[in-house]
């Protein structure tokens, strides 16, 4: 019983007490009578409640112990205390409390991300069910728009986390030969912040749903939460803004930690040019997260102020149904949003670039082809991605005279992206290719991402964007990059590192079935969605013209196949985790550092910090031939 204090259980209890105390304090001590011009006390109560929910959670799990021992100048924690906090000999309970060991945090992130993807996928299922035929099939538009918003935002939160979180925490420190992250407590904290953020986020549908203000409950805005409509829409917006600000804070803290770890914690001899590409990818993504996220946080903060205190950062006062007091500018919201929003999509994709390069190198049994070009590609995309955001506003009317410049940067970004393709093709060529599950997902990245990238070039061109913007073509395009590119790499990464993270092998047979289901379902569904976009179907509509019926029907049917296959893959993860084949330390014959540690990885990773003497994945002719000679003739058995 003592083990349960502090743990997530006490955290949850204090969080709930905190929410009730905070909101009731506002309603009873500050006010509850909402006047049109005065503050909105209902939502003020929500925000204060969420804040205390968050603080109660942190106190309950014991995350704030260290700041206060520091403040009171009590005894500084010694090594033994640190080890206890890292979950030494704590058993399974260490996954349910504030634990600083980076491997525990990595697993916690992995589970949370899978849950988020599950909820997001449920949203996708509901959306595609509604859109299967024209007409209002299942939901009122109020529900449909809320589902669209939640699907979008939740998937974004999941995808910006699903490399930096699980793999950035579990794998990167071992990969660079460190004993832990640079700031283990901060690391545990950034996960601890994400949990209440997701809980608050998932409460969105319950806020003000069905309220009679004429604009709907939940959130009617889409994940872009543009200017005045975010002020106008239902109370769910307040929950969304609070949750996403918290998640952004978590992502910033995590990014700072990852950057510092990679800069300062590399093992002797691990020069910048010797890091595996995964580390480069996650490094680039962390830079984007650290520098871009604030922009969205400011946007959401201003939305909250507009909603609660009736400021008017985004709302103009023209006309009859104006939202708010007036004087605001909607383009400010768009720019704040997209200055984060565009680097954000590269934040998702950069680690995918890195991981896919590593996976392809390992399973081609070759060094990465033209390593420097790969690094240049990743870092080039990282830098240029801050200069392209206006292409989301080609038709917004804001600064049309700048379009030629943003068109140039947007098309330019395809050049460093192309470097990554060269690296991949060069690594594959004349390799000794071993078709494992991770390799199959990595190869599917080639196919999917080239379609996503090429359709992006269509959209970067202003005259075409004027036609295609805000339509299903865009939806299909970014699903090709994020699902077809990043999610496939996530699946590859899960399959690749599963033996190291869980000590068991992911079932290849089930994985193989899921893989083909995913590829077929995904490609047919979204190619068909491209057609709907070309036909002129707008995005985020609950209902549509019968002219788009065929394309949508095909999309829906194959989206169901995709969702079912992803569910099968998730089932495979769960079943293999519980009862999979036990894995050896290095089943893939990979050469990077994490595979040289025993499985399960001991608490401080290495008995002795290794000294690195060469670039990653230096497979040679001799080693590969020796391996080939040692194999059974079929060559199919897992190493």
């Amino acid at each position, binding site marked *: 019983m003592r083990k349960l204090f502090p743990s997530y259980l006490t955290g949850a209890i204090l969080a709930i007490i905190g929410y009730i105390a905070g909101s009731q304090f506002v309603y009873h001590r500050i006010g509850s009578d909402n006047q049109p011009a005065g503050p909105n006390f209902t939502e003020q109560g929500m925000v204060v409640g969420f804040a205390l929910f968050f603080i109660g959670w942190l106190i309950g799990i014991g995350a704030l112990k260290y700041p206060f021992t520091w*403040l009171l100048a009590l005894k500084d924690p010694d090594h033994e205390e640190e080890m206890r906090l890292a979950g030494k000999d704590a058993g399974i309970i260490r996954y349910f409390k504030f634990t600083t060991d980076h491997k525990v945090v990595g697993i916690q992130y992995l589970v949370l991300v899978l849950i988020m993807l599950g909820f997001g996928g449920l949203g996708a299922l509901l959306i595609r069910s509604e859109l299967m035929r024209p007409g209002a099939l299942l939901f009122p538009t109020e529900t449909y728009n809320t589902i669209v918003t939640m699907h979008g935002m939740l998937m974004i939160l999941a995808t910006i986390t699903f490399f930096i979180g699980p793999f950035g925490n579990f794998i990167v420190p071992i990969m660079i030969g*460190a004993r832990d992250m*640079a700031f283990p407590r901060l690391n545990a904290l950034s996960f601890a912040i994400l949990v209440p953020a997701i809980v608050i986020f998932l409460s969105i549908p319950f806020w003000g749903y069905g309220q009679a203000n004429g604009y709907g409950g939940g959130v009617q805005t889409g994940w872009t939460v543009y200017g005045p409509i975010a002020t106008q829409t239902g109370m769910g917006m307040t929950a969304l803004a609070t949750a996403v600000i918290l998640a952004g804070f978590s992502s910033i803290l995590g*990014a700072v930690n990852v950057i510092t770890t990679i800069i300062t914690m590399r093992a002797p001899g691990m020069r910048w040019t010797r890091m595996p590409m995964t580390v480069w990818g996650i490094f680039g993504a962390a830079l984007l997260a650290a520098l871009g996220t604030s922009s969205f946080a400011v946007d959401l903060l201003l939305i909250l102020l507009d909603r609660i205190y009736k400021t008017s950062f985004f709302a103009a006062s023209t006309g009859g149904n104006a939202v708010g007091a007036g004087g605001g*500018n909607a383009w400010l919201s768009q720019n704040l949003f997209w200055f984060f929003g565009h680097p954000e999509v590269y934040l998702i994709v950069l680690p995918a670039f890195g991981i896919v390069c590593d996976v392809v190198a390992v399973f081609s049994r070759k060094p990465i082809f033209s390593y420097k070009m790969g690094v240049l590609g990743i870092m080039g995309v990282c830098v240029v991605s801050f200069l392209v955001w206006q292409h989301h506003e080609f038709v917004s009317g804001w600064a049309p005279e700048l379009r030629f410049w943003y068109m140039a940067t947007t098309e330019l970004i395809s050049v460093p992206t192309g470097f990554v393709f060269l690296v991949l093709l060069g690594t594959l060529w004349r390799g000794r290719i071993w078709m494992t599950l991770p390799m199959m997902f990595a190869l599917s990245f080639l196919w999917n991402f080239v379609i996503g990238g090429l359709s992006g070039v269509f959209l970067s061109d202003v005259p075409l964007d004027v036609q295609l913007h805000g339509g299903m073509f865009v939806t299909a395009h970014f699903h090709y990059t994020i699902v077809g590119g990043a999610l496939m790499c996530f699946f590859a990464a899960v399959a690749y590192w599963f033996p190291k993270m869980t000590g068991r092998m992911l079932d290849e047979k089930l994985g193989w079935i899921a893989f083909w289901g995913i590829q077929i379902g995904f490609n047919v569904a979204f190619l068909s969605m491209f057609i709907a976009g070309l036909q002129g179907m707008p995005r985020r509509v609950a209902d549509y013209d019968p002219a788009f019926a065929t394309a949508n029907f095909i999309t829906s049917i194959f989206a169901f196949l995709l969702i079912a296959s992803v569910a099968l893959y998730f089932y495979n993860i769960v079943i293999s985790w519980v009862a999979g084949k036990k894995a050896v330390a290095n089943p893939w014959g990979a050469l990077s550092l994490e595979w040289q540690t025993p499985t399960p990885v001991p608490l401080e990773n290495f008995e002795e910090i290794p000294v690195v003497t*060469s670039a990653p994945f230096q*497979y040679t002719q001799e080693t590969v031939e020796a391996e080939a000679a040692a194999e059974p003739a079929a060559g199919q058995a897992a190493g």
Partner: protein
Amino acid sequence: MDTAVPASGHGEHAAASHIDEERKVRLGMLFYVLTDVTFVIFMLVAYPWLRSYNTDQGWFPFQHMRLPDQGTTVTLLLLMVVSAVFYFIGYMGIRAGNQWILRIGMLISLVLMLIALVGQIRFMGSQQFSTGDGTFADTWLLFSGYHIYHLLWATFLGLGVTHRAFRGRYTKEKHLGVVTIGYFWYWAALTPILIFILMTALPPKL
């Protein structure tokens, strides 16, 4: 191969040997402050933006509206600057190994910070305008509020540093906490200067 050859014969097994702990902590704090800097920059963007669009004359709608008192603004700003200067003096003291300069410096800077905090809250509350009185009022209150958030953080950190200084936790060799919290302290003092410059270069009244 990414050869992991165990270090042998150099006694290089201790975790700390190849990692510069001080550099790590300083770098981490600098990056954290950098994210705060980006936050402030994006917030400041709202001011010239809304001012230049001045949608429906909503920037400064009531021409009789009184501006925040310049004298108070400058006084609060100077308080912050002096506080940062004393912080720096305290830091120089511990670098020279003098505990008392550190303690006095920290204490004075903390007290000044507290005065600035209380002053800023009273200043914000005493304005004739409130939210919804045009976008200048909104941005001013936003900056003011964020500055208070900065001051709260700085006060919390300052309490810790001062307390620890009086407990003698910092030495000539080991005073990393003073350095890193200094980064935040200086940045908190720099923010109102940036805002002041912005509002002087682009005066509220069009």
